[in-house]
Every structure is written in C-alpha cells, then in structure tokens.
C-alpha cells in the first residue's frame, strides 16, 4: 500500500525546477545559437590585439581597396582585403566588434538605468509619480528618435561618447514601460504587502522584493535595446553623423564602403553581414530568454 502511494507520487513529481530550466535553455535552439555566437563575438572582441593580423589604424594609400582573398587579386596578407585607406579589413572588423558591443552595451546600460528607475518609481508609487512618468514617456515616444539623435549629434559633434550618450538617453522608453507594468503587478502581490506591513523601508522593498522579480523581463529588454542601439548607431553613421573615424565601428565601415557599393560590394557586405549577425544573435538570445523565463508567453 505504502509502496503504491510512493509510485503514484513519483509519477506525479516531475523534474526539479533547476532541471526544467536547464532543459529549457539547452533545448532552445535559438537561445543556444544566439548565446554561443554572441559569446564567440565577445571573445573575439576581447582578444582583438591577439587575433588581428594588422594594426587596424595603419594605412597604405597605395594599396587601397584590395579585394578579399577569395577574389582573383586577393592575398592571404589581407584575408578580407583592405579599406579605402589601405587598412586591413579583417583587423578593423575584429576591433569593430569591440566598438559595436561597447555602443550596444553601454547605451543599453544607460537607458536601462534611466528606464528602470522611472518605471519602478512609477509602478511602485503610482499616483502623481506615475502621472509624471507616464507623461515623460509619452513625450519621449512622440519625439522622432532618428531625427533628434541626428540633430543632437550634429550639434555636439560625433564621437563615441556622444553617440553612446545620445542613444542611452533616447532608448529608455521600453525599459520604463515594461518595468512600470511589472512593478505595478508586483506591488499588489501579497509578499510585497507583507513586507510593507512589517515596516520594511521603501528602498528595501524595491531592492529585495521588487528588483529580483523583474530582472527577467529586464534582461530581455536589455537585449532588445542593445540590438536597437547597434542598429541605430549604424544608421547614424550611414547618414554621416555617427562615431568618428578612424574608429573602426561596423556601422561606420558600412558607411565608408557605401560609396563603392556598385563596384566593390564586398566593402559593405562584410561589415553589413557582421552587423546583421550580431544583431540577429542578440535578438535570438533575447527571444530565447523570454521563452525560457516565461514559456507561456512565447512571443
């Protein structure tokens, strides 16, 4: 009798939550692919000085736009050819990974801080704070991002810092919206009420009760905004108002190769594909994380 009950219970109890999560992560192809490729890009970026065959800044005006190795005139000395100033394209691509990741990462960090702060404040305090924050979000959404970013960069001059700052200051809206609604939901939860009832300070409730519970959706938004920032930087650079040369940013490389699109399409294809892959894997990672953290809300 006791044995049968055990069997029944064994049949009922599934794998542990940890096992489930691990299973979901490793079973999710998009997530795995995104994670692995992104990790690879990060490693390449970190090891740039070791991996790059040439100095990404050293120019040779008499060896400009040499084609990659798979073209008839290509050589192994410059596996991906050289750019419009005769700089090694592969080396610039490798160093460019640092820039793109930096732009995406720091811009997402800044906007994440601003957005989360505003969203949590609005969601937690409600009332007038919420009204004000919602208004600010509305104002922000109504501002045409590309246009304002262009104008600001034009005013302050393009540089890595300015571009990162502008993107960081413009892309916080999604953070604010998501964090606001997540916090609103949590605030009415019993354990938050309980914490308040036993007299926990606001900051303690926010940091130990609210934050740990919104971190999942936060990470998903971080990936989305990272991808967004990288694409937007590329667009700004394409329009001539992004980071400044000789910085080897992929967006800038596309912009520099743009002029020769018809004649040397590989110049734009190489950084374009790199950009596409980077944004793709970040998105896959974000989608995957969302699936894994809340499988019932897929998409």
């Amino acid at each position: 009798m006791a044995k049968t009950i055990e069997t029944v219970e064994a049949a009922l109890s599934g794998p542990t939550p940890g096992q489930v999560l691990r299973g979901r992560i490793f079973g999710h192809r998009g997530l795995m692919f995104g994670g692995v490729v992104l990790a690879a890009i990060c490693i390449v970026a970190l090891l740039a000085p070791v991996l790059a065959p040439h100095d990404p800044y050293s120019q040779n005006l008499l060896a400009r736009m040499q084609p990659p190795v798979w073209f008839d005139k290509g050589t192994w000395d410059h596996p991906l050819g050289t750019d419009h100033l005769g700089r090694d394209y592969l080396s610039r691509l490798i160093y460019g990974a640092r820039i793109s990741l930096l732009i995406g990462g720091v811009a997402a960090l800044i906007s994440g801080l601003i957005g989360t702060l505003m969203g949590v404040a609005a969601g937690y305090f409600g009332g007038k704070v919420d009204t004000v924050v919602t208004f600010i979000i509305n104002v922000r959404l109504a501002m045409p991002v590309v246009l304002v970013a262009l104008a600001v960069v034009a005013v302050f001059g393009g540089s890595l810092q300015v571009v990162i700052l502008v993107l960081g200051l413009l892309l916080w809206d999604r953070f604010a919206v998501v964090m606001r609604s997540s916090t609103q939901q949590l605030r009415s939860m019993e354990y938050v009420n309980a914490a308040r009832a036993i007299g926990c300070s606001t900051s303690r409730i926010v940091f130990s009760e609210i934050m740990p519970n919104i971190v999942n959706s936060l990470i998903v938004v971080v990936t989305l905004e990272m991808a967004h920032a990288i694409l937007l930087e590329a667009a700004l650079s394409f329009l001539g108002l992004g980071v400044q040369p000789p910085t080897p940013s992929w967006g800038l490389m596309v912009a520099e190769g743009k002029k020769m699109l018809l004649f040397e399409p590989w110049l734009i294809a190489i950084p374009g594909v790199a950009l596409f892959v980077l944004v793709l894997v970040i998105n896959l990672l974000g989608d995957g994380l969302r699936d894994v953290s809340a499988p019932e809300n897929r998409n």
Partner: protein
Amino acid sequence: MDNILSVRDLRVDIPLAGGTLHAVRGLNFDLARGETLCIVGESGSGKSLTSLAIMGLLPKMAQRRADKLEFSGIDLSSAKNRQMRSLRGDRISMIFQEPMTSLNPAYTIGDQLTEALLLHRKVGRKAAEARAIELLEKVGITAAASRLEQYPHQLSGGLRQRVMIAMALMAEPDLIIADEPTTALDVTIQAQILRLLVDLQREMNMAMILITHDLGVVARVADKVAIMYAGEVIESGSSKDVFTAPQHPYTRGLLRCIPVPGKTKPGEHLGSIPGIVPSLIGKTQGCAFRGRCDVAIDACAHDIPERASVEGHLYRCVHDNSQTQFSASGEINTTSQSEGRL
C-alpha cells in the same frame, strides 16, 4: 424510447512530452430525448473533455476515439467538419461554464444571439431578432429588445449566463450540453439559472447533458447520473439508483459531502476525501482511486471488473459492494481536507 445520443468506449488521449495523457477512458452512455444525464466529477476527471468530444471541439492536440458515437443516427466519429458544423448550434448546442468570457466582447448581444440562427436557417435578420427577443424573455431578461444593442461588458454575470442559455436554445436543438453553467455565478443566482435551464429543457423536450459537481442539483434534475473519476466513469445509473444505493467508495464519499437539510447538524463536519487524483499520463492500470480509498486491497492494482448491482446501474470496483452495505458512518474519513473536496 429512441436514443438520440449513443456513446460506446469513448476515449480522449492527449499526447504530451512526458507520455500520452489518457484523459477520458472508455466512456459509455445513452441518452434519449427529454432525458437529462448528469456527469459528476472533480476538476480534471475528464467531464469537460467528454462534452467537447461530443461537440467535436476538442483542442487540436487531443485525439478522440470511440467504438460508437452516434447522434440521431449520424456517426459523429466519422463526420466531416462540414457536417459537424451544420449540427453544432443547430441540433446540438452547448452552454459553457464561464459566462464572463464566453461571449465575444466585440459584438452586441443581438449579433451573437442571432448568429447561430442566421448561420443554420434561412431566416432574415428581423425574424432572428424576434426569436432572440422571445428567448431572452423566456430566460427571464426584462427589456429584452433593448438588450440586443448592448455589449457583454454591460451585463452582469447572471444576465450573461441567461444570454448564453438563450443563445444555445435559438435553433431549438435536440441535445443541449451544459458544462457547469452555474459555477462562476453567485450562489443565489446559481439556483435560478439551473431551475430555468431544467424548465426549458422539459418544455422543449430536449436531451440534456449537465456537467456539474453540485450533487444537490443532480439529485433534483437528473434522470441518469455518471460519476467520473480520473477519466473513467466509475459508477453510472439512474439517478434514483445511484443516490439511494451508491456502490463505489468514491460515490459514497461524495454523497457524504452533501449537507442534507434536516440530517446534517449545524457545526457538523461535512465529509471530504483526502489525497489527490493520480497522474493519467502513460499506461494506467487498476483503480485510480485506490490511493485514496480506505478499502483498497492489492487486487485494486489489477484490472477492475465492471459490475452491475441492478439493471443499468454499473460500477467499477474490486469489491462486490452490492453485497456488503457500508454503514453511513465510519469507513470513510470525515476530516476536513480540501484536496478532494467538491
């Protein structure tokens, strides 16, 4: 009496990652015009799936098999989608348990009421609306004509369920399936709605399958009763037989949970059945109730024979309970556990 619905060995399987969930396992029953069959069981016992299986509205992943699934001479198990569609809402209709969400928020009551009639009958909008008003009045809704222009969110839960009932009756179906039509409503309204439903069923001489866990209701309205447990009918028969001479330990446990006016003393604990329903994934053998049953023996883990106490009163138990009558107290635990409570 001709059976309008005949079901033999109805099975519903749901393939899941961990194995196949046998949600409904070998259901049999017959239903004639004018009769009411009550299917009783805990949540997850497969009663809602049974009703959806008859309607042909099972979720996509669920697989339905039956030796016989015949409605009014039509073999439902082999019927094409088109044929099923022409039956649904016309000759078979259904009332769902969630009046709050079962009405489309985007359309007026009038639109939704007349839809079935307009789909199945060659009637004009005017005529359909007239019929809608007539039925709304019949289900006790005042100012019926003005309700047609209203949207679901403008109605209370009770009113919405009345609308749902009216909607099911629009085409004067032969069979009406009501899946816990009162669960979501206030207790005071529950009784009214049920009363209404039963009156209408009798008035229109329809067959009705009423899915409920309110045994009090069952006792009042059912002609036939089927008790489901873990996807199986563990006891079935005429209402009178089942209520007066429950055979299966589970049925007996259930009956003990009903307060009986005059018999149950104030403050007295109502019966409850401790334990939980076992998983139905994979191959199951033996009595599913044995884990909670006080009279379980080793033989319960093997195939259980179907027994009949009297003609048409069937149950599945290793014990031939018709011989050993249980006393009304003692064997079945009466502590108040919530798990198995209905």
